[in-house]
């Protein structure tokens, strides 16, 4: 194993993100809770988006990750609420369950070389199946209204893995998860599997003919990716203290995951994080602006609430058409072109 060498810039970056809550506490003490909430959301979603991108960057476009986050969240909470099993056991069980589901769906697809639209629709069906199961088991899950993990004591407990009232603690848990996500990404990026998967995403037959076991490589990355999303979903449930079929599972969520990851850029380490920052800040801004604007309320009444979804959808369309490499990807390409142009003029000048 090569081991990851930490560059000074990386350490500074990590420290800066770690210090963010202190900045918030110092400069925005009045609305500390709100801003921390926003940051926590960004970090948690970054982790989930990073998990999706692990597959997505190799051409495995899954619309099934809403199923994995859903399984992670619901299995953990159900075990806690109805069997009293601590999330310390519940989460590994939920993650294992999601991984098994991911592998079961992935295996036939990869073995028969199913990709592209077909794979996306197949995984979409998985998402819908999980959502239907959640709604159908309404005696336990609360159906489409959702449910809450049973509160343990004052809501802060190591045993019950509950930490929602203490935003600082929640922040550092989310931060730890985010760093874990980046670490996994780097490990995958530096591994031999990555070359195998890259080769397979470009030309499956050629990859197979040089001895790459395409099915196994893809199953490995699928397992990893679904496990990460299940873990993210479970932690999300523990933080939000609420789970609903449309907030943590379902087609809408699957599309959101994919969009955010693409918007940030799935080819670069921090792309999904940028995607999370972008989508969360966008959603929050739209919500605040629209709810705070008397004009808009006057124009549209209660349906102004749908305006943010309208803008979101419109942006999604525009993004894909005009910026298919994502924010970070496009910026980096532009930067590289500029640097190259500068180098060229520099040489010409000499």
């Amino acid at each position: 194993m090569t081991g990851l060498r930490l560059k000074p810039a990386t350490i500074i970056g990590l420290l800066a993100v770690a210090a963010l809550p202190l900045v918030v506490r110092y400069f925005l003490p009045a609305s500390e809770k709100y801003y921390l909430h926003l940051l926590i959301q960004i970090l948690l979603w970054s982790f989930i988006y990073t998990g999706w991108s692990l597959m997505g960057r190799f051409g495995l476009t899954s619309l099934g990750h809403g199923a994995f986050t859903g399984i992670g969240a619901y299995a953990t909470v159900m075990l806690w609420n109805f069997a009293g099993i601590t999330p310390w056991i519940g989460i590994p069980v939920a993650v294992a369950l999601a991984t098994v589901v991911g592998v079961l769906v992935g295996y036939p697809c990869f073995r028969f070389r199913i990709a592209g639209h077909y794979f996306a629709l197949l995984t979409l069906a998985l998402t819908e199946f999980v959502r239907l199961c959640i709604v159908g088991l309404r005696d336990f899950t609360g159906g489409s209204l959702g449910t809450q993990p049973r509160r343990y004591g004052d809501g802060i407990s190591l045993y019950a893995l509950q930490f929602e009232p203490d935003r600082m603690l929640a922040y550092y848990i989310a931060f730890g998860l985010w760093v874990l996500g980046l670490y996994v990404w780097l490990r995958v990026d530096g591994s031999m599997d990555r070359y195998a998967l890259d080769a397979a995403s470009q030309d499956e037959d050629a990859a197979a003919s040089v001895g790459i076991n395409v099915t196994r490589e893809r199953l490995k990355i699928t397992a990893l990716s679904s496990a990460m999303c299940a873990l993210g979903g479970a932690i999300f449930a523990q933080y939000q203290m609420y789970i609903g079929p449309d907030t943590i599972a379902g087609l809408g969520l699957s599309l959101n995951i994919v969009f955010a990851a693409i918007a940030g850029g799935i080819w670069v380490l921090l792309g999904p994080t940028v995607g999370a920052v972008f989508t969360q800040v966008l959603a929050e801004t739209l919500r605040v602006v629209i709810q705070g604007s008397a004009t808009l309320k006057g124009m549209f009444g209660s349906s102004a609430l749908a305006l943010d979804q309208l803008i979101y959808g419109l942006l999604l369309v525009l993004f894909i058409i005009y910026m298919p490499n994502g924010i970070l990807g496009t910026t980096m390409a532009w930067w590289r072109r500029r640097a190259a142009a500068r180098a060229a003029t520099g040489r010409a000048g000499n």
Partner: protein
Amino acid sequence: MDCQLDIFFLEAVVNGLLLAGLLALLALGLNLIFGVIDVVWICYAELVMVGMYGINYAYKGGMPFLVAALFGIVLVAIAGALLHFLVIRPVLETPPINQLLVTGGVLFLLQAAATMAFGIEFKNLGIRLGSLNIIDMSFSWSRILAFLFALAGMLALWLFLSRTFIGTAIRAISQDRQIMPLMGVDSRKLYLVTSAIGGGLAGLAAALMVLQYDIYPQIGLQFGPLIFMICVLGGLGNMIGGFVAAFIISQFIAVGSSCFHTEWGYAVAFLFFMVAIFIRPQGLFGSRT
């Protein structure tokens, strides 16, 4: 649960058959578009929703139902052509993931636009056609008519595809895209025509559905995933496969719902789908290796 081979079971089977017509019609539209253009409209069910609202307002605005239905079909056909022209065409050469997502964005957009324009209340045309009673079974005429018209629509499409020059070109293009210009076919125009036809089929489905269901902005999520599942089960792009798959899936839904709860009907159908895909991931009638 009470699942017996009695008259209600038979009623469920027949109702499943009636539902299948509608689902087959929608699957056909999606398969047609996929077969020709090689894209999937994730927002297909939302186009149906647009059509339903269009028909609702046209009817309440005083048009006779048949005229309103025709209006709905034309409206969604235009919407389909616009969708292709504005959204699909710019991403035609990009990876499939972008094409999926871009129509996913349209899905959000249409839902939100419908919510803003029409509110979240359920809307209903208020047409009651009554039902056909045989022994102890009862079948609503709206379902029977929907079934018959869906079959008629599919038959019309089949005739169009097999008897006309444009229809032949639609069947040919997926077999060899590069040589289409040698035949004098402008692929861009053909895509546009296909999109309009796909939209028109969604419009027809909308006209048949307004008689049975309440209209609300999220209605697409009720049956959209179901259509995708049917298309995948039948083999994406395979029109006959989609037709057969619609009949299989709707039986699972109808019988499952009558034995358990409605969602369980759907869940059983999806479970069957998962198992079937595990065995034949290319779809029951797919021919991909």
